[in-house]
């Protein structure tokens, strides 16, 4: 069958040989690995994942009920790609970049039908193009040649595609264009449009990866204060169900100070995605005051949508993120949850009857995870700009057991680890990030920024908080055995201070209008206020005041209201002076 002359004559189209769930085998298909194919009479979208002899194995991105052997398979000859261009912000896509609003319209029903295709960006819409280079200028791949005001907060930069040869611009002009109309022409004869295509499984090229030194400020006290992530950094949020992964991801998507947010809902709940779709347009970016949705791209492949599209949605997301990075933007990508992605790989792998690795996951799990996280970073782009992609991946370990393969393989790669804790969640301590288990390896490289932009002694004050919390952890073990009152007075006082650290500082109410976002300066001042209590209290203790009296000063419980205080500077000023006054009056 595989003689050379046969291949010449073989039609590109193949025939289905067998169907098992999302995995379809076709015979006589002339396709390369990762080519996109249309399967069956309905033309369901699929991707080639294995070639063996005359048989080609395809993972299908849609439900395969009713598809049978003998139906045709058509090859597009293209790898799975995304359409890049203006129109991706404010959009909501499924795992293969089909806009869900367009699908609703085309299918005419609220349910996802099969065999309907829709391009990732609107090919009809006209955008206002403003050139930034002149005729006669020489441009190279990646160079920005013009701008399009895409949304209220983001200017879309039109770039020479990375796979172009570049050359001299022979014509370019301002005006209204659709994404497929040429906006410029090069001396090589190449026409440049606002539309690029890029295969999702391939990283977009960049000049160099650099060491990140600026934090991605999240407005979440425990993250900014104790475990910061850098712009261009990677973080994992593992936690059992109900521990607040999704709320944390939503908070980051809302308040992180990135220019662009790509939110990938991978195998999660439909209602959660709806919440994002309904909430985000109403929320304001704390920096620009513009609607959050105008900087956001959503990818929603819920748990009941086809499993193969769940496998690809992560790649779709990161490719879109890279495209915006190329424009010089700081992009944050949230993937919720990478475990569902790994499970999709496992499901496909087991249908292929591959030899399983740990817990049935494919042996290439670690490689796929690191490949994905390596696409994050602070980059020197090929056009000379600097842009970053920060990746924050939620992990859903079965039974909350962090020793499982996805968590472990993720931890080997990421540099920030926010461990969610079911115990904390049960007592409604949110965000339920465990401060003893979590870590950030970016702390040191970010310290200069915090010193300069927040307060000179930020790292020292933070270290003080970490020490108190550590000490509390040790003391709690003793308290569990003998009770609090059996401890010496200074240790009782430490416990009291630690309690305020936990309740007033680490806890943050995501659903409170004010508390939901905390400026780093406020984070610092709140911490400093608790330190004031600490310092004053220990002095009083040295002067012989009993610990109960110190702990019961009127002002202390007001520490708990700092987070929700709108005029926080005044509130904390007053609180600190009251604390001082009241504690000093005790001796």
């Amino acid at each position: 069958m595989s003689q050379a002359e046969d291949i010449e004559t073989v039609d590109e189209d193949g025939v289905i040989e067998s169907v098992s769930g999302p995995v379809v085998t076709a015979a006589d298909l002339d396709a390369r690995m990762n080519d996109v194919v249309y399967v069956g009479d309905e033309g369901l979208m699929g991707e080639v994942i294995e070639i063996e002899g005359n048989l080609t194995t395809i993972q299908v991105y849609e439900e395969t009920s009713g598809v049978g052997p003998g139906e045709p398979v058509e090859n597009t000859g293209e790898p799975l790609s995304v359409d890049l261009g203006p129109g991706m912000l404010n959009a909501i896509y499924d795992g293969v970049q089909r806009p869900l609003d367009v699908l609703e319209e085309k299918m005419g029903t609220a349910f996802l039908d099969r065999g309907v295709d829709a391009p990732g960006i609107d090919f009809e819409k006209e955008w206002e193009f403003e050139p930034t280079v002149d005729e006669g200028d020489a441009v190279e791949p990646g160079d920005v040649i013009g701008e399009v005001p895409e949304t209220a907060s983001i200017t879309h930069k039109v770039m020479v595609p990375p796979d172009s040869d570049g050359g001299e611009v022979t014509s370019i002009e301002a005006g209204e264009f659709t994404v497929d109309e040429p906006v410029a022409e090069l001396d090589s004869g190449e026409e440049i449009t606002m539309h690029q295509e890029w295969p999702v499984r391939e990283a977009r090229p960049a000049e160099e990866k650099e060491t990140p030194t600026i934090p991605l400020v999240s407005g979440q006290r425990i993250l900014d204060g104790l475990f910061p992530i850098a712009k261009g950094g990677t973080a994992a949020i593992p936690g059992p169900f109900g521990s607040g992964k999704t709320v944390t991801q939503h908070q980051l998507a809302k308040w992180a100070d990135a220019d662009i947010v790509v939110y990938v809902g991978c195998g999660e709940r439909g209602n959660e995605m709806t919440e994002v779709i309904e909430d985000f347009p109403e929320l304001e970016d704390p920096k620009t005051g513009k609607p959050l949705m105008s900087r956001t791209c959503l990818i929603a492949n819920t748990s009941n949508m086809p499993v193969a599209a769940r496998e690809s949605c992560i790649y779709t997301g990161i490719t879109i993120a890279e495209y915006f990075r190329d424009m010089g933007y700081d992009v944050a990508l949230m993937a919720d949850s990478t475990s569902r992605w790994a499970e999709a790989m496992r499901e496909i792998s087991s249908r292929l009857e591959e030899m399983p690795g740990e817990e049935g996951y494919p042996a290439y799990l670690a490689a796929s995870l690191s490949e994905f996280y390596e696409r994050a970073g602070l980059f020197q782009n090929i056009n000379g700009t600097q842009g970053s992609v920060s990746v924050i991946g939620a992990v859903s370990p079965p039974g909350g057991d962090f020793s499982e393969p996805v968590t472990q393989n993720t931890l080997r790669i990421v540099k920030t680890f926010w461990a969610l804790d079911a115990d904390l969640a049960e007592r409604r301590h949110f965000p339920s990030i465990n401060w003893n288990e979590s870590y950030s390896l970016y702390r040191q490289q970010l310290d200069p920024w915090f010193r300069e932009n927040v307060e000179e002694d930020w790292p020292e004050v933070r270290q003080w908080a970490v020490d108190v919390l550590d000490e509390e952890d040790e003391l709690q073990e003793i308290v569990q055995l003998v009770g609090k009152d059996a401890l010496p007075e200074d240790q009782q006082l430490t416990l009291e201070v630690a309690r305020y650290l936990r309740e007033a500082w680490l806890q943050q109410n995501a659903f409170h209008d004010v508390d939901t976002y905390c400026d780093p300066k406020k984070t610092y001042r709140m911490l400093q206020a608790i330190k004031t209590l600490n310092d004053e209290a220990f002095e009083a203790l040295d002067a012989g005041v009993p610990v109960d009296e110190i702990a019961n000063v009127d002002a202390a419980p007001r520490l708990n209201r700092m987070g929700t205080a709108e005029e926080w500077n005044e509130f904390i000023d007053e609180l600190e002076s009251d604390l001082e006054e009241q504690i000093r009056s005790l001796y």
Partner: protein
Amino acid sequence: MKEYQTITEVSGPLVFAEVDEPVGYDEIVEIETPEGETLRGQVLESSEGIVSIQVFEGTGGIDRNASVRFLGETMKMPVTEDLLGRVLDGSGNPIDGGPEIVPDERVDIVGEAINPYSREYPEEFIQTGVSAIDGMNTLVRGQKLPIFSGSGLPHNELALQIARQATVPEEEEGDDEDGSEFAVIFGAMGITQEEANEFMQDFERTGALERSVVFMNLADDPAVERTVTPRLALTTAEYLAFEKDYHVLVILTDITNYCEALREIGAAREEVPGRRGYPGYMYTDLAQLYERAGRIEGREGSVTQIPILTMPGDDDTHPIPDLTGYITEGQIVMDRDLNSQGIEPPINVLPSLSRLMDDGIGEGLTRADHGDVSDQMYAAYAEGEDLRDLVNIVGREALSERDNKFLDFADRFEEEFAQQGYDTNRTIEDTLEIGWDLLSMLPKEELNRIGEDLIEEHYREEEPEAAEVSAD
């Protein structure tokens, strides 16, 4: 329709047959045994020349000469409003002796995913009349909120109580409710005849049967049929909700039996097993059931799901509760200790959770203080629980006055708030008032989760003294 007598292998619930024409994946198959019995099945894998078929009713009686007919369509559920009040078996055939069902439509039971863009976010409070749910883990329309239970715990009583009492409080005054009615779909998978009787008697006693559709797959019915039953139930639910504007409450029991059936089929197919022998695609499979809850923009009705599952060994890290918890919007957890203390219903609020609660409560929906009260009670009860461990070691006397108050709070929380009996229907006001009765045992300064103005409004100034005296 072609008939074959080409069975080559029968293994567990699976039959392999040779075919000379292509057969579609998931297609329905009828197998006629030499005794003249007709069994139904579904195509699990279709290859050129050979198909594997999963037989719903068990493969007993099938031999090499049995004839196989491919019906050329995937499994359909005949739906009509007349299904209300009917009792069907696990494959959707009437078993109540009533008239034959004349369907309006025949709908594919493998539901299509709801486009997340077309969904409407659930935020309508459902009052179940159970304090531990309404107050602490509020259920809203379109939510999927499972009950995590264990063998021997009264999850059925709780499910029945919810089915009986569930209302939307504003409905009585509201004028938008003219078209929407309430319906219950009950899907039983592998429950015992006794349990089934319990449900049926309650439905009949309260007249609920009229607005219910019951699907019964009993413990001695074929296991494979269990993989179809919930899909029939949910297809019916979607039809009633999105075509006929009903607010549908779907109770599925017991998901554990459903998963056992999945495992059985997986094993028969010699698939690579995942955790504890359950198939690797169980997450996807369960998601295809649970995600069929929700609301759709522009449609009146809604599908709310209460799946019940018994955790093997009361272990919530077992794959079944674990995967369920990752898909559903929270869980209600039944507790063996509370049950033996005689708390009815024995709901342990600490591991319980309703993810959609925050948007379904508060001013205009329930009451302005609801969120804060619930948070504070959680924190206080958790603290009291912690102290109980300590009391066992050092005794009550060694604890401070403050700690003793938290201990008392935890006790009264269980005895007065969680405890209510299966026939008591509490309004949300009742529930929150009991909450304030309990919170007022604690000093005001300890109520750090509640806004100051709300404390002013609701805190009982007198009562703490009285409570303290009696506690001493």
